[in-house]
């Protein structure tokens, strides 16, 4: 599994865990603040 978490202060997605399941993108755009996220180790 590939997990993305945005920790940007004030972002609508701050701290929310996004598990992409069988998909394994190398980066993902945060739907809240639009920054590009890298997968969590």
């Amino acid at each position: 599994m590939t997990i993305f978490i945005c920790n940007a202060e004030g972002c609508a997605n701050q701290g929310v865990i996004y598990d992409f399941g069988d998909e394994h993108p190398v980066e993902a755009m945060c739907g809240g603040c639009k920054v590009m996220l890298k997968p969590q180790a």
Partner: protein
Amino acid sequence: MAGAGYKTYTTGDILTASDVQTYLQDQTVMYFGSTATRNSAIGTPSTGMVSAIGTGGQLQYYNGTAWIDLIYATNVAWTPTYSTTVTQGTGAVSSATYTRVGNTVIAQVQFTFGTAGAVTGAIDFSLPVAYTSSTRFTGSVRMGIGASTYTGSVIASGGSARVYATNVAGTYATVALTAAAVPGTWALNSSFIAQMIYEV
């Protein structure tokens, strides 16, 4: 200066600094690790300049005032913001990707609820690119709840989209807001897959 067009060289021509700048450098696709690096390197871009950015080499062109995305090299993953009426639950899976061709966005969202996942009202999620048209679009959604599979619609407004179930109680099918038990009781392993095409 980009926009100079095309120059045919013949034997014996002198390749001037101006030629290299105008016909080679300014009209060639440049690669940068990020938009920030590109913007720092090219303080005053010329209309029509093309650059490739970051992982996957996203192509952008300069329209005279801003850099605009061209066809995406690969689908872009994004993390939708769900409404507070959606309790994702522990272990929820949310996989969303989109691509863009000009002003058309093609996106999909796959979501599976985790432990203690639930719905308490309308299911809303943010769109990867804000929907700006005055005409609302409709996408399709498949909802898997328990052993049942339901179909529905996705209707966008501004920066977010809303999932509707199809109500066939009357003579004509209508749309119905999702709720805790509409179209079924949302719980662990319930899921929805939404497909959308919309103009921005």
